[in-house]
């Protein structure tokens, strides 16, 4: 039990190891590369932990599918452009039912964009990036300690849902160093749920629509819908057990601020003026929880590192107007937030007292 400085990306790796991960495949990309580098160091000292630096992110994502099928809890880490390249494999993982974890340390896109600047523009891609319909479970922590915690939750949810789970981070959070005692965090670890390859059966793991015996079901709509509903309902049921969020700050305010990931930390100086809702499980959305909480507030404003990706979701969920403070081009600062609030006439009359950030002050909660 020792407190020490830990970096967000390092905490993700340590959480993965704690969750029982034994295979990492990846490709270097800012701002996620520390996870790759530290996984290689960990593998050098722990032969049971397999590490493969791949030729690209397509190979990385497909390799963790293979590694997971072979029996290892498997993960990769990347950022926007690499995350785009992984989308086909993520969809395959959903179709086949393969537990694995993809860490996306978000930067500013599209394209190569701003490789070292923080962004939050991959929310929709984390939900809808692959072809077809599927049910994504996605978490987004806010502190270094949470990077560790939600890495463990991600592996657990992946095992339970038998699907690829996305752990979001960002360039600020990934490179943030905080004093924390990770040993003091005690979370249960879900054992493997998928029987490994060559267990004596003759299973066919196929991305093609197939019947249980492996014959193609590529023109059987009823069979497709039966399998789709079964998978969807299973994943939604699992997600219910991971309904993590934070609700706090000044609950007497008339305005609810919604912020997540690093943005919630940046908005901390506004604590005296607004109530806060921070979704940690980004997908599936926390409809029941947010609907109940939002009903108490006259105004809602979403502060996020994209041009309204989550605000659109909230507006559609609540069927009411939602104000937006988009933090674009990596300009994620309290000054940018104040400017954004001012532009929509919501800047608090008196400047909030500065400092006094205490991320552990309001505890992350869980529904139910």
């Amino acid at each position: 039990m020792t407190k020490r400085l830990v970096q967000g990306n390092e905490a993700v790796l340590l959480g993965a190891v704690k969750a029982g991960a034994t295979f990492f495949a990846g490709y270097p990309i800012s701002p996620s590369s520390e996870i790759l580098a530290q996984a290689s160091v960990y593998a050098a000292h722990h032969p049971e932990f397999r590490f493969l630096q791949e030729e690209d992110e397509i190979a990385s994502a497909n390799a963790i599918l293979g590694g997971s099928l072979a029996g290892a809890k498997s993960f990769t880490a990347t950022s926007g452009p690499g995350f785009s390249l992984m989308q086909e494999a993520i969809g395959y993982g959903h179709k086949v039912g393969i537990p694995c974890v993809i860490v996306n340390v978000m930067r500013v896109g599209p394209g190569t964009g701003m490789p070292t600047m923080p962004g939050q523009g991959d929310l929709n891609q984390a939900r809808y990036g692959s072809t077809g319909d599927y049910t994504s479970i996605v978490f987004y922590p806010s502190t270094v300690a949470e990077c560790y915690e939600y890495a463990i939750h991600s592996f657990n949810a992946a095992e339970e849902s038998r699907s690829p789970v996305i752990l979001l981070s960002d360039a600020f959070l990934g490179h943030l160093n905080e004093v924390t005692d990770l040993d003091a965090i005690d979370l249960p670890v879900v054992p493997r749920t998928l029987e490994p390859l060559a267990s004596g059966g003759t299973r066919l793991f196929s991305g093609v629509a197939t019947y249980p015996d492996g014959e193609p079901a590529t023109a059987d709509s009823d069979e497709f819908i039966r399998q789709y509903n079964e998978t969807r309902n299973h994943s939604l049921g699992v997600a219910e057990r991971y309904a993590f969020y934070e609700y706090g700050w000044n609950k007497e305010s008339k305005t609810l601020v919604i912020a997540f990931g690093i943005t919630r930390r940046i908005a901390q100086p506004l604590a005296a003026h607004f109530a806060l809702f921070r979704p940690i499980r980004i997908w599936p959305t926390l409809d029941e929880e947010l609907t109940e909480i939002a009903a108490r507030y006259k105004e809602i404003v979403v502060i996020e590192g994209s041009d309204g990706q989550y605000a659109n979701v909230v507006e559609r969920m609540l069927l009411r107007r939602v104000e937006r403070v988009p933090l674009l081009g990596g300009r994620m600062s309290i000054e940018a937030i104040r400017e954004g609030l001012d532009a929509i006439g919501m800047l608090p009359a008196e400047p909030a007292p500065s400092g006094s950030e205490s991320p552990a002050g309001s505890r992350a909660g869980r529904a139910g």
Partner: protein
Amino acid sequence: MAVKDKLKTDLFPTIWCPGCGIGLIMQQLATVMDELGLDKSNTVLVTGIGCTGRMGAYMNFESVYTLHGRTLPVAEAIKMVRPELHVIVVSGDGDIASIGGNHLLHSIRRNPNITVVCNNNEIYGLTGGQTGPTTPKGTATISSPAGASYSPINLQGVVNTNPNAYYARTTVYHQGPMRKAIKEAIEWPGFSFVDVASQCIENNGRRIGFASANDMLQNYRTEYKAAPPGSTHLEPHQLGIVKGEPLPVADGSGNGSGE
């Protein structure tokens, strides 16, 4: 055990067209697997998208039917996590040499102890007969009506960029040499690649002037000749095996030494 125990014969007939060469490869692969004692508890098949990819569904093994082009990352990861397993990739030429070409380059470089059996029919058969990476220059296809514009990929040259790899070229007509090539490939300690020329009568052969699958087989018989013993390089239409310097397998449990 018998060869037929390696096959899910209850799913026969297969979806492959009459006259297709893939079944001839499956038969020899099953024969070799039987000879070497490969079974569902020690072997995994990894197949790619294309007609060839269906082979995994017809064999009595656990198999992964990957995304198009992604057999090698999946196979290499399986081998890394479970080095005691035999991992055999069965892929078409379009899958492994075009959309999966970058993985081929780099898997070869890393020399994993896996075997690739490539059904090389010089065409994208499943999608109807478009030019593929192995289509000979000048061949008329439905995406190159005036003849394919470019030279085909040199698979032997690509595989032999790894001085420790194994490359064999054979055809579905030459059943004995094909069996030998597959067997030695599975026993090879490192990356091995069996390049099997195979006919697609429906979506290639008739268009380029063959009347039947048998005519294509007879063409293999007359066109392909065994390379002289000791050859270190195969000329076009030569059958043979080119072996690099075998490296000891780091995990001590290679494809050929698992049992």
